[in-house]
């Protein structure tokens, strides 16, 4: 009898913990970063690795499965690209719950330094390399300039990274403006979600305020369909998370001065 009761109790605990991950280790994180942009003739960074790995390790300490950490010549654009155009996101970015990239960016994409398979993960009003969330990805943070710029020659924010990309994805966290490479941003971002229970959006904004001057603006976009919103998503195990929605009709974009 005691064994039966223990089994029932264990099932109950797993049941009520629901999204808690401390014991089940069910949620996965992956990061990629580029310091060395010499192949493109661009300025290189010195701590894109620190930013990404700080995030990676902090989620790992919270019980997440640390699935991959690829940097520089091992950070591949194809890891982010949809399968229908030759990408392998099904093995990497869309096979984790939370991904982070640190490197250079522009409104039309973010950049890598090698030929796997090209150097730009592109999002424009006429072409989308990315299609995220159709497998697993809920959130992706991109510490790169301008990727979530509100309006550019390449299209509005929702044309570049909107309906063509959100296929179950909950949020993209990035920057409306130029940004910097604060080495501890990833660690701070994760810490605010884990230690303070902030929503992902709040944690991104606050970490950006800590790391960057008020000439810069962080931005977050997500889904806001009627009766359904990813605006207040928390990290798994630290608050509410909206279910997946693979064909949203309403998207939000929010900016915050750092």
């Amino acid at each position, binding site marked *: 009898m005691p064994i039966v009761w223990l089994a029932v109790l264990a099932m109950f605990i797993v049941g009520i913990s629901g999204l808690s991950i401390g014991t089940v280790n*069910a949620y*996965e994180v992956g990061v990629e970063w580029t*310091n*060395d*942009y010499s192949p493109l*003739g*661009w*300025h*290189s*960074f*010195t*701590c894109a*690795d620190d930013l990404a790995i700080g995030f990676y390790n902090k989620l790992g300490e919270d019980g997440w499965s640390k*699935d*991959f*950490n690829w*940097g*520089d010549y*091992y950070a591949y654009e194809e890891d982010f690209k949809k399968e229908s155009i030759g990408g392998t996101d099904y*093995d990497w970015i869309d*096979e*984790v719950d939370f991904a982070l990239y640190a490197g*250079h*960016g*522009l409104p039309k994409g973010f*950049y890598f330094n090698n030929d796997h398979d090209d150097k730009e993960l592109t999002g424009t009003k006429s072409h989308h390399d990315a299609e995220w969330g159709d497998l*697993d990805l*809920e959130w992706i943070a991109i510490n790169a*300039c301008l990727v979530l710029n*509100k309006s550019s020659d390449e299209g*509005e*924010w*929702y044309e570049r990274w*909107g309906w063509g990309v959100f296929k179950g994805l909950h949020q993209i966290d990035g920057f409306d403006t*130029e940004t*910097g*490479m*604060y080495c*501890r941003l990833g660690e701070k971002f994760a810490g605010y979600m884990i230690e303070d229970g902030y929503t992902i959006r*709040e944690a991104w*904004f*606050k970490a950006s*305020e*800590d*790391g960057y*001057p*008020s000439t810069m*603006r962080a931005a977050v976009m997500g889904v806001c369909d009627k009766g359904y919103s990813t605006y207040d998503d928390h990290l*798994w195990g630290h608050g509410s*998370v909206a*279910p997946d929605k693979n064909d949203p*009709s*309403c*998207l*939000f*974009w*929010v*900016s*915050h*001065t750092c």
Partner: protein
Amino acid sequence: MAIGAIIAGVSFTNNSIDEQLPSKAFPEIGAPTTEINITLGAGMALPVIPDKIMVYKVKKPEVTAEKVTALAETLGLIGDVSEDANRCIVKHDSLELEVLKASGRLFYRDSSKIYGDINNPPNLPLKETAIKSAKKFLSDNGLMPADAEFSKVVTDTAEIARKDPATGDVSTEKIDLVMQVIFDRKINGFPVVGAGSKLKVYIGNNGDVVGVYKCWREYEPYKQFTILTPSQALERLREKGIHRVITGEEVKVKEVYLAYYAEPSPEDQEYFQPVYVFEVDIGRGEIVEEYIPAIPEIEPKISEKPQPQLPERTKPAPDELEDDE
């Protein structure tokens, strides 16, 4: 190679070795951008700058649970202080006060209002009203520094995009979420730049103050240092390059000035050190700021950072777990 040349190039000044300052202070340093021509904008002249300038020592903030409790009570937060190696924090319902030990940065916020709500947009006041509310709140709560100068008011916004499933047409709606009243400071007559010099008051519905972010390190004079001339600093900028994606072959410097640099608030900072700030038009309608240390001995030593260990890449993906959502 170029970095080595920068580090070796310390013969611009006669500061002695024992006057060297920490070299970790400046962000965004890496290998130079290639093939970018950096020129002064039309009709622009470099400023006249004194050949020596004071470096200031940052006072270590005294952050204790008792002090944070007292400030919390002043702000209407009644609750216990949680303290760890990095911070003290008080939470009371949706109110929160966090003070960092490294810099003394305080962040008071109403978490239900500070970043705004797209589903319940606030009624924001006129700018003049927001400024008045911000100044009054800072003064009433002992948070207004003597050297704070009003800078600007910004409004953080959101946009909602809705797609008609039948036609595919998209309509958008702009929402104002929160106002930020921002103050600047000067030291020794020069502005302070960087993420770690910040005083902002957040204004929400009907002009209510819904947050304050204040990182305002105290300081005292340290020593006078000989600094680069503006033209030497411009040469340094040309060596270092622009740390953004440059798609053209030329960028133009729009303004140059001397400033003190404040590190991000989670960081310990020993000195306020001078930097040249170059405001550069990189095209695409964007002006970016580039910092060049004015005292060459404190150029960051890139080689001190070990190269990151790149894990060998293997396929297939390591993940064999079941999808969870």
